[in-house]
């Protein structure tokens, strides 16, 4: 599955939730959820099905709390399709292959940089946030008590994180300028993922299928 072109993976992950919402409930949602969970099943129980089931379960619980069984079934199957599709996408889509694919397609290097830089910056800042929380606790910061006390603690935790991140912008700017990454620049991909004819046909087919389902639903 990982060998598929990233655009094909994106097309499948987008088409399944779209069809779940367009096709009549509950049969449409049941079919799309079935396909999405089958795709996830190929990743195994622990890495595929389990995270999706854990993510979808609260929605079913809250839907039952707020709605009747018919509505719960209709919305629950649609949300489950969405959850399963994106959990599958996150498991099979390699960000570096997506960047290579966008560069090979001639998209702006800016878009590729933004996506890749964000994915690498998020875990780094999360780790820093945890370190700041531990450091402030060592200095005696108490994050408990009244709401005002907690808000003061939040300021003491958030401010160093945000300010340190903003100071990092200077370093990143210099690095970008030094590497000639300016808007409009074109790059040559090192290892572009192969885009076979059959995959292009599948992508167009999915788009036409969604459009046809939409027209049929509206008509």
């Amino acid at each position: 599955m990982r060998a598929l072109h990233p655009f094909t993976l994106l097309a499948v992950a987008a088409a399944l939730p779209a069809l779940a919402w367009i096709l009549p409930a509950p049969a449409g949602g049941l079919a799309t959820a079935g396909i999405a969970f089958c795709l996830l099943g190929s990743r195994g129980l622990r890495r595929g099905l389990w995270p999706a089931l854990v993510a979808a379960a609260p929605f079913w619980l809250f839907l039952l709390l707020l709605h009747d069984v018919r509505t719960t079934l209709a919305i629950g199957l649609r949300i489950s399709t969405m959850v399963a599709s994106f959990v599958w996408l996150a498991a099979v889509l390699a960000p570096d292959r997506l960047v290579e694919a966008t560069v090979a397609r001639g998209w702006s290097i800016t878009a590729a940089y933004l996506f890749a830089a964000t994915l690498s910056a998020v875990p780094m800042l999360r780790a820093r946030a945890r370190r700041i929380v531990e450091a402030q606790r060592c200095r005696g910061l108490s994050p408990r008590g009244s709401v005002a006390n907690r808000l003061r603690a939040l300021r003491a935790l958030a401010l160093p994180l945000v300010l340190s991140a903003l100071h990092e912008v200077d370093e990143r700017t210099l690095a970008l300028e030094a590497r000639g990454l300016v808007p409009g620049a074109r790059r040559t991909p090192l290892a572009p993922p192969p885009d076979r004819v059959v995959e292009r046909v599948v992508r167009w087919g999915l788009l036409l299928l969604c459009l046809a389902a939409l027209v049929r639903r509206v008509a």
Partner: protein
Amino acid sequence: MSARLLALIPVAVAISLALSAAVDAVALPLFLDTTGTILATALAGPVVGIAVGALTSAVNTLRNPTFWPFVVVQVIVALYAGFAARAALFRSLKTAVPAGLGLGVIASLTSTPISYFVFGCTTTGGIALTTALGKALGLPPLGACFFGSFVSDFGDKAVTFALVASVLHALPRRTAARFPLALRAIGAA
């Protein structure tokens, strides 16, 4: 877009997503997931803010797919924060907090139809429970959904605006001056 603004976008997205660690530590019912969007807008204008908001939703979607439809809310937040920055509403907490409360109302008005029609008001546990409370109080389904969104958004956006105002005032003037809108947002230009 300059290299500086290009470098700011991923950092602002990461700020939005990393602040959850600080929120968890103080155990307050806040999201702060629009902090990066508001901060980037206050520093560099709504175009950068919209890019940050869209990217935040995209990255969040890989973790929790229910975030993607709310990309519209991020765009509204960026536009509102752009207006607030041009009006120098980040100049003090006395102006930032009411502006944040106003955004809370607008954000809940925007997110309610998405939450109601796409997710049946079950986007988070807190929203679902407050929606159930609204129903128990006799509100109609859409009204109960708005009640749920309003309770969660109102305070969150006020705290986010206050936090961004604190950050802008704590930034050294030389650093702030490197961004096109920062000094105007705090009423120093």
